[in-house]
């Protein structure tokens, strides 16, 4: 068993991190802190998940969210997708393993992966609406969010949702408010099987190694850690029984990266676009300075008079 996060003192304590620990801030720059905090991570061991949805309930409870009563269409996923109120969702896949002949019930807890290179933050046009703390948390700042939905286009995991009620973007915060006072995320606290554990990123990698060895000894020869390098690694990681096929886990992307279209849009287009506008304006000024105004002459007016008078 992984040592659970200890209950903190009930006495008020100063926040463990804040504004001064930002390493990225959307549409603006920050002075990075001299020392980076220890990176944290949440490890979701799919092989240990029993699909009880305690994590989903804990998330709603802690964040004071209420999901609408939905419709049962014959699957366990409830609601059917992430929403502005459901920041984490159990996705159930029935997988027929051709090799072993077993039916495997793969249950993946979906939600924000807290990428080291966050596509949402890169796409966001509102200064400070998305921030990244040096411990790895990527968080949305709602009073700065303008509801444009650019984060949805930037995210390689299809996570942010725009609220119909207030037109702002919502997603998992990694329980930034709990972590700031030394607690673990609510979902982790609620998990009855330690399918969700929380600690430093190094601890989580070590614990994952131990779990992967165990899975391999049980015949899951492709068991492995999902910490995709295409987004610089993530601060929410999975232990997968079939790490060679992440897509079988309800379409977990095989090699997620920020879409090259988003990179072009937020990169070269921005600079080339402003340069083009500037160049056109400059050419105008230069042309006027060199060629001068094109003026109608007295002779033009006389020619027009002669033409109208039929001469």
């Amino acid at each position, binding site marked *: 068993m992984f040592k659970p996060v200890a209950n903190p003192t009930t006495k008020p304590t100063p926040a463990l991190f804040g504004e001064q620990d930002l390493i990225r801030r959307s*549409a*603006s720059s920050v002075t990075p802190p001299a020392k980076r905090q220890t990176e944290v991570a949440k490890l979701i061991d799919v092989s240990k998940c029993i699909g009880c949805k305690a994590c989903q309930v804990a998330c709603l409870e802690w964040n004071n969210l209420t999901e609408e009563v939905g419709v049962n269409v014959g699957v366990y996923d409830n609601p059917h997708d992430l929403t502005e109120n459901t920041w984490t969702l159990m996705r159930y896949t029935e997988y027929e393993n051709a090799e072993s002949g077993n039916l495997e019930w793969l249950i993946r807890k979906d939600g924000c992966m807290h990428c080291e290179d966050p596509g949402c933050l890169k796409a966001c*046009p*509102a*200064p400070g609406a998305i921030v990244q703390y040096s411990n790895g948390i990527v968080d949305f700042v709602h009073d*700065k*969010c*303008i*509801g*444009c*939905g*650019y984060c*949805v*286009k930037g995210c390689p995991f*299809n996570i942010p949702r*725009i609220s119909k009620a207030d*037109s702002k973007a919502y997603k998992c915060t990694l329980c930034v408010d709990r972590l700031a006072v030394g607690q673990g995320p609510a979902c982790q606290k609620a998990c009855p099987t330690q399918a969700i554990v929380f600690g430093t990123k190094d601890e989580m990698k070590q614990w994952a190694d131990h779990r992967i060895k165990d899975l391999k000894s049980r015949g899951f020869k492709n068991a492995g850690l999902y910490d995709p390098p295409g987004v610089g690694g993530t601060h929410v990681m999975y232990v997968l029984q079939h790490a060679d096929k992440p897509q079988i886990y309800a379409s977990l992307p095989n090699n997620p990266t920020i*879409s090259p*279209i*988003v990179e*072009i*849009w937020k990169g070269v*287009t*921005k600079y080339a*676009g*402003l340069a*083009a*506008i500037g160049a*056109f*304006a400059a050419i*105008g000024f230069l*042309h*006027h300075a060199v*060629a*001068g*105004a*094109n*003026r*109608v*002459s*007295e002779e*033009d*007016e*006389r*020619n*027009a*008079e002669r*033409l*109208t*008078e*039929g001469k």
Partner: protein
Amino acid sequence: MSRSEVDPGDGVHRGKPVIVDRYSAGARVNHWITAASLVLLALSGLALFTPALYFLTGLFGGGATTRMIHPWIGVVLFVSFMGLFFRFYRLNLWERNDNVWLSRLRDVLANDEGKLPEVGKYNAGQKMVFWSMSLLILVLITSGVVIWDQYFSNYFTIDQKRVAVLVHSVTAIVAICVWIVHVYAAIWVRGTIGAMTRGQVTGGWAWRHHRKWLRDLVTGKN
């Protein structure tokens, strides 16, 4: 027999100087609604395009209002530009002499138009502005709807929205460049702006820049 270069509402008044009616009141109002929307769209669009210009959202009452209002101004521009399109498209149809005008662009830029074939109501440069704006605005409204999440988020995939947002940005930049050409030409060629403010130009202006149009007006060809 070439086409008449005269629009309904165009007219010529004898005198010193000769005064020529170029744009009706309807055309002018239509033009200025389009112009105002285009400027507001450029400002609000650039604010969301680059963090360096995000401060422009202040003109519209903040980021969220800018995001909300920009597409609606786009709808106004589109409807308004449709009006301009149907008013102006006939005399903007390309003719063989337009190629000659273009091939001698050097003379045009040097204020030396004398050697060029006589021009109708619009020269090749104006026609290019007209047709490129028509095309760009069509692309802008189409790609704009795809990324208008408030009403259309469920109709398109994220991949389609990614393509649309890039297309929308690039098209908007090109449109702003075309707009700069349009405004610059109106300033550079003196006597032009009156056409869109009072609706009139002088006979000399028409003789110098749009002689074929003036001839058709005088001979009453239509």
